[in-house]
């Protein structure tokens, strides 16, 4: 189980001092599920920092964090994704062995085949979560992705951190 006390010392101090409440969802939005899950169109959004081999990797040099995103087509072979997350704060060997650990597309394909979900969207989205200055994420890139998902008529999004 991860708590602040499990983090490396420098990260622990940073997290305890960080003004999380400044960025909180307030009010908390609520969109009730409008159709049964087995009829819903589902997309994945991850902050695991994965990208296609032909896409640029996330930029590690931006001090406040890279707020850009990568579009991942639903047809991707999951294990071919590159993981370029800059954080030294987690063990990268897990996702190296199995991308589904942070981007569970193969699991959702199985749920689609079983009829648990209606269908997968034609695209998914990846961010690199190491964003300490999230204003551009809040005002721009998260809104862009949300609007693309709405345009795709997505009903449900499943999000995973790293």
């Amino acid at each position, binding site marked *: 189980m991860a708590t602040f006390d499990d983090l490396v010392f420098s990260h622990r101090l940073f997290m305890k001092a960080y003004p*999380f409440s400044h960025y909180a969802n307030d009010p908390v939005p*609520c969109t009730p599920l409008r159709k049964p899950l087995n009829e819903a169109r589902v997309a994945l*959004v991850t902050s695991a920092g994965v990208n296609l081999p032909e896409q640029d990797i996330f930029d590690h040099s931006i001090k406040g964090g890279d707020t850009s995103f990568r579009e991942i087509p639903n047809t991707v072979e999951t294990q071919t994704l590159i993981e370029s997350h800059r954080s030294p704060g987690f063990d990268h060997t897990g*996702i190296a062995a199995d991308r589904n650990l*942070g981007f569970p597309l193969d*699991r959702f394909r199985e749920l689609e085949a079983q009829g648990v979900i209606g269908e997968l969207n034609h695209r998914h989205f990846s*961010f690199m979560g190491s964003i300490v200055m*999230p204003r551009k994420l809040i005002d721009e890139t998260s809104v862009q992705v949300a609007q693309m*998902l709405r345009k795709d008529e997505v009903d449900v*999004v499943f999000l995973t951190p790293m």
Partner: protein
Amino acid sequence: MCVQTVGLLAGAIERENITTTSVSLLREVTSIIHPPRALFVPYPMGFPLGAPNNPALQHQVIAAGLALLERTDVPVLEVFK
């Protein structure tokens, strides 16, 4: 900061009238950022679905996350058991 990023993304997507559910690796962060629905999992950073190459466990986490979709008493923060 991944957990904050996911919480902020979930809020933005839900504001576009899409129902979201998310995994959390740090309850301290999620309990402040308030994504609409989150499942706190007892795994280390970097292991949100539990373990690599363990589809059964990954499916358990996903199922528990999807089970939150019906909830409207947001913010929802449940613990995976």
